[in-house]
Each structure stands twice: as C-alpha cells, then as structure tokens.
C-alpha cells in the first residue's frame, strides 16, 4: 500500500508531463494547466499523508523498487526513502510547486507553447521528487541531473532568443562541472564502502576508519561539495544563476529560488554524517558560503534588472545556508531553506506580477509608483521583503538570526561577513521595493495607461506565500524548536539547544539593528533623495566593476572558454592535419621508395643478368660457408 502511494507521489507529476507533452496541444490551455497543477497537487497531498504518518510513528519508510546498476562490489537498487528530511523537502517542493503551477496558468496564458511549459514544470517536479526521495546517491543523481535538464529546458523556454539559449546552456554546463564532482564523490564512497545507500553508508561511516579511508572521505566530501556548488550556485560556479533569469518568472521562482538550487543543501544535509567526519571540508564550505553571500550581495546592490536583484539575493541567501552547513548546523540551514523558499518564491512571483503588469519590462529604472496600481502585489512583496531583510517577527528573521548565531559561535570573521551581507540584503531589497513601488511611474505613457492589478490566479499564490513568509518562522521558534526535534533522527550529531541568554538577545538586536540600518539607508537614498540609478554608460569606478559582476564572466571566458576554443581550433586545424600528414607520411615514404626503386629497373638486361649471377654466387657462397 505504501509502495503504491509512494509511486503515486513520485509518478503523478510524470503522468502530468506525459499528458502535456503528448496531448497538451490538443486540449485547451486551461485544461493543460489544470492537469499540470492537479498532478503536482496530488503529490502534495500524498506528501501530507506520509508526513502525518511519519509524525505518528516516527519511522522512515524505505521502498525497494527494482535493481538498477550493479558493479562488482555492490549493486544499486532503485529505491525510495521517505524520512523526515525528504518529507520536509517534499512538502515545500510540491506545495510551492502547486502554487507556482497555479500561478503559471495565468502567467503563461498567452504563450503558444503553454502545454510544453507545464510539461517541463511537471517533469521538473518529478525529477525533484526523485532527487529527494532516492534512497541512494545514484538515484539522487538521476534527479540531480534531471532537474538540471529541466532547468536547461525552462531557461531556454523562449528558444528563439539565442541569448536565452546561451544562458540555458551555461546553466547546464556549469551544473555538469559540479556533477562530475558529485560522480567522483560517489565513486570514492562506493569503492570505500561498497554501498551508496544512505542508511548503509551511515552505518559504515560509524565504524572505525583507517587513515587512508579518512583521506578518501575528505576527498569524497570535497567532491560532493563541488557538486553542491554547481547546483546551488556557490563560488566559483554561481554565474549561471543570474543568467538563468532568462527563463519565465515562475521558473525562476520554482527552480532557481525555492527548490532546485536548494538541492545542494539537501544533499549535504543528507550526507551530514560524512561531512561531520571531515571538519576541513566543513571549514571550506563555511568559507565558501560566507564569501558567496558577501560577493553576491555586493553585486545585488547595483543591479537594475528586478529579477537579477532577486537572483543575486538568492545566491547570497544560499551562501548563508552553506555557511550554516559549514558550521555543522544542518537544521538551521534547513530552516532557512524553508523560510527562504516561502519569501523568495513570493518575491519572484511578485516580480513576475509586476513584469506581467508592465508587459515584460524588467528594468527597475522604468518602474516606480506601482503601489497604487498593484496593491496586493505590493503588500505581499513588502511582507516578503521584510522577511528577507530579517525584520522581527517575519520568518526570515528567525532563520537568519540562527545562522548568524551559529556563525558567531564558530568564527567571528564569518559572523562579520555574514552580517555585512545581511545589511546589504536589507539595503538592496528595499532599494528594489522603493524603485518599483514608490515615487512616480517612470515608464511610457502607454504602459501607465495599462497598469492594473494581476488576475486572482496570480494573486492567490502570492497571498498564500506572503502569509507563509509572515508566520513560517513558527516551525522553529526559539523555545519550541519543532524543526530541530523533527530532524533529530537523521542528523548524526545532536545540535544543542540555544538557551536564550543575553548573549543571544544581543546578537538578535545587532542583526535587527543592521537590517533597520540597511532599510533606512535605502530609504534616505531612494525616497528622500528620489535617486534613480544612472544609465549603464554613466556608471564609473568601482561601482562599474560591481555592476559588471566583477567581470567574473569575462574572467571565465578569458581563463577557460577562450583557451578551450583556441585549443580546439589548434587541434582541429593544426594537429589533425599534422596527424593526417603523418599517416599519409607512410604512403609518401612508400611512394618515394617506389620512385627511387624504379630507377633500379633500368631495363638493361645485362645488368639484370649480372645481378642475377652475383646473387646466385652470393647464395652459393653463403650456403657453402654456413655449412
């Protein structure tokens, strides 16, 4: 029974995908959208069922489906694992997924390929579920690559624009770099422990390990982290995520903010027993996380594309989550993942609503004063912005605060870096709000004329998400710590409770003060002075460097893409020709020998006779001597 339900949970979006890809064109747009939404909703309901069941008996469910790949020292099953962690992820993936599907029905209504959009979205949800419920690393890898594929398909959804296609390709390839790391990590673990199954690995890692194994573990952990870097857009593989905003906004909300990019965090949390054994790698994770948070936030300060701002904020928030992971506070990271999913999805959907209202305009310099025209969008986004900025008592406050606290305990420098990133976050988020919703409208007259609030299919998800962003912190309030308790069974080391002492209150106060400072800074600059960002050409100095994303893309192009291309050209033109010539060389030598040998054939019979007789003589002499 459980098997069937679990299969239903897994396959329902896949059915939606099949339906939409094969019949989507024949049925009306709404039906196609409805099917897409319903199938995800079914998964959501199933998740709730399992969640309730788990809450009751607290036992993780393991389901073996069939044998998949076998290598000589172990075999891999296609199996599902429904435990606390995967159910938590399932809940918000399918939950937010359903909302975003709902939203997309309206948002994508005018697109001729709407059925494809829903097909891809469903496929994405399917792969995401696979990723989450797989009971071994390789099944997770199916989902891992699968979501990458869907991300590729959806970023390049408007495939007529080659820039979008480039962005899609970039995302896929950068992910693949991480995937290679992931695979190598899998190999290392597999060859050491003869299994990739999570529960078996956990047992195996609990035993006594030799020094060599420990070194291997370090490498494995590092490789897995590289995989996570690719998927969760951390330094140095983060550049694909801002570009990925080329996709339709619901995609950005679902894949590139709420779910897929958190896969890295999911994986690290899943493998927490491994990372706990390798403190060196944890340190690397923490440092990378903090740096990413800082770098991405600083870039976000000056972006003018509304979605790019949100993208960098996502990268930055993911960095904070990795910081938490690096500090060993997996539950805190998971907490932030969940709250972040709420408010970031809401923000993206809100921005989508704005873009929708402005008929595709994404540049904040051409917005402004939308508060009146789009009140629901404004208020929902405001709530989410307050949440992301970390204002009491919104969801973001609790989770971010915990991260900062953990960082403080771990290392002061990390704490300072994270705090600066938080202040920047508050600043640029409010900059976004002020530029978009306050002051006067700066767009064209025609746009102004058409300004309107989005239809209810768009606003309902917004409202739900905003509510969640408001109260989402409740799942892990200091004191109750429901989430911490819930996650206890899957975490190898216990995370001790924070007793709320003065110390903690002080940290909370500092965080809050920082957020308020960021907001006020933005207020004074954009409301008081009515400052509007300059045109691209007028930006100079260091801000130009930031505005151009620290030239990281150019740097990568210069360092990797260009050399690779010139190497390819060199191979293709020079080396290939040279090798070809080398082979032809044999022919040329044979030919030359022939031309030279031809001269021996003088046609003079006398000479032949001489040669013949001398040859006979030579043979005779040889035979005689040899005797």
């Amino acid at each position, binding site marked *: 029974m459980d098997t069937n339900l679990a299969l239903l949970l897994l396959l329902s979006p896949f059915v939606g995908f099949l339906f939409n890809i094969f019949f989507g064109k024949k049925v009306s747009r709404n039906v196609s959208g409805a099917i897409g939404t319903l199938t995800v909703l079914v998964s959501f309901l199933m998740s709730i069922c399992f969640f309730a069941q788990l809450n009751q008996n607290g036992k993780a469910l393991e389901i073996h489906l069939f044998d998949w790949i076998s290598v000589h020292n172990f075999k891999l099953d296609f199996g599902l694992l429904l435990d606390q962690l995967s159910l938590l992820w399932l809940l918000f993936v399918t939950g937010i997924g359903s909302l975003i599907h709902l939203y997309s029905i309206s948002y994508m209504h005018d697109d001729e390929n709407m059925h494809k959009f829903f097909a891809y979205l469903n496929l994405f949800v399917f792969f995401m579920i696979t990723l989450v419920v797989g009971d071994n690393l390789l099944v997770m890898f199916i989902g891992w690559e699968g979501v990458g594929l869907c991300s590729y398909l959806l970023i390049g959804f408007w495939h007529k624009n080659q820039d979008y296609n480039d962005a899609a390709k970039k995302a896929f390839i950068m992910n693949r770099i991480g995937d290679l790391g992931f695979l190598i990590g899998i190999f290392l673990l597999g060859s050491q422990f003869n299994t990739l199954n999570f529960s078996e690995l956990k047992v195996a890692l609990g035993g006594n390990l030799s020094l060599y194994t420990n070194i291997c573990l370090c490498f494995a952990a590092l490789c897995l982290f590289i995989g996570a870097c690719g998927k969760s857009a951390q330094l140095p593989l983060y550049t694909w995520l801002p570009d990925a905003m080329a996709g339709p906004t619901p995609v950005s909300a679902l894949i590139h903010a709420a779910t897929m990019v958190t896969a890295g965090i999911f994986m690290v949390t899943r493998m927490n027993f491994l990372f706990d054994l390798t403190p060196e790698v944890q340190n690397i994770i923490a440092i990378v996380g903090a740096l990413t948070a800082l770098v991405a936030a600083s870039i976000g300060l000056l972006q003018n594309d509304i979605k790019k701002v949100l993208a960098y904020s996502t990268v930055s928030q993911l960095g904070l989550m990795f910081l938490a992971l690096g500090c060993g506070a997996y539950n805190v990271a998971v907490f932030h993942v969940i709250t972040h999913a709420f408010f970031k999805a809401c923000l993206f959907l809100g921005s989508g609503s704005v873009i929708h209202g402005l008929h595709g305009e994404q540049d904040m310099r051409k917005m402004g004063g939308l508060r009146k025209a789009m009140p629901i969008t404004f208020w929902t986004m405001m709530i989410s912005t307050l949440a992301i900025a970390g204002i009491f008592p919104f969801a973001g406050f609790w989770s971010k605060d915990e991260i900062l606290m953990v960082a403080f305990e771990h290392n002061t420098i990390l704490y300072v870096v994270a705090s600066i990133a938080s202040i920047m976050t508050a600043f640029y988020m409010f900059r976004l709000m002020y530029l978009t919703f306050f002051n006067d409208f700066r767009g064209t007259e025609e746009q102004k004329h058409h300004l309107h609030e989005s239809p209810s299919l768009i606003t309902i998800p917004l409202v739900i998400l905003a509510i969640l962003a408001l109260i989402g912190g409740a799942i892990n309030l200091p004191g109750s710590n429901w989430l911490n308790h819930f996650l206890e069974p899957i975490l190898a080391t216990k995370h001790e409770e924070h007793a709320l002492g003065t110390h903690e209150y002080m940290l909370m106060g500092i965080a809050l003060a920082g957020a308020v400072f960021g907001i006020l800074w933005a207020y004074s600059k954009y409301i008081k002075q009515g400052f509007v960002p300059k045109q691209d050409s007028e930006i100079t100095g260091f801000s130009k460097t930031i505005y151009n994303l620290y030239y990281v893309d150019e740097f990568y192009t210069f360092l990797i893409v260009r050399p690779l291309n010139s190497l390819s050209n060199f191979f293709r033109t020079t080396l290939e020709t040279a090798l070809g010539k080398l082979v032809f060389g044999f022919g040329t030598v044979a030919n030359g020998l022939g031309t030279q040998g031809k*001269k021996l*054939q003088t*046609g003079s*019979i*006398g000479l032949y006779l001489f040669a013949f007789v001398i040859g006979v003589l030579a043979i005779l002499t040889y035979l005689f001597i040899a005797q």
Partner: protein
Amino acid sequence: MNNILNQIGIENYIFLSVLLFCIGVFGVLYRRNAIIVFMSIEIMLNAVNLLFVAFSTYHQDAEGQVFVFFSMAVAAAEVAVGLAILVSVFRNIGSIDIANLKNLKG
C-alpha cells in the same frame, strides 16, 4: 669400357662441367648479341647434361640419362621458341642487341 670412371675419375668430369658452365655464364654476361647469349645458355645446359651422364654412370643408374633425354627435349622446345621470339624482336626493333631491349625500364 665399364671402368672408364676408374681411369678418369669423376672429379675431372665435375671440373670439366664446372668450367664449361662458367664459360656459359661468362658468355651470357660478356656478349650483347642475343643469339650468342642463347648459345651460351645452351653451353650451360650441356655442362649440366654432361654431369648428369657422368653421375648416371657413377651410380650405374639409367635415370640420369633419362633425365638428360627430357632436358634435351625441353632445350629443343626452348630454343625453338626463344629463337622465334628473337626473330619477332628483330623484326620489330631491327636489332637483337640486348642493350637495345629496354622496354622493361621502370
């Protein structure tokens, strides 16, 4: 006369035919006239025939002589054909100097 080899010795015959053969070889190498070359070849053949007969007597066996008989038949055929070829060569080129026969030049 059965004791002829006792008186002359097989070695003498061997030396004779070797010398005869070498003269044949010498002729082949020395002359340019195809007919003389041909004759030299006949000399070589005869040297070998001579040896055959000598050893036939030495071994008191008729087979050697039978072989010489066949060899003569072949030689006759060969000469006939060879001379016919020479005639047609002469007809085409106007000479049977082997230095002029250079169509084999590569």
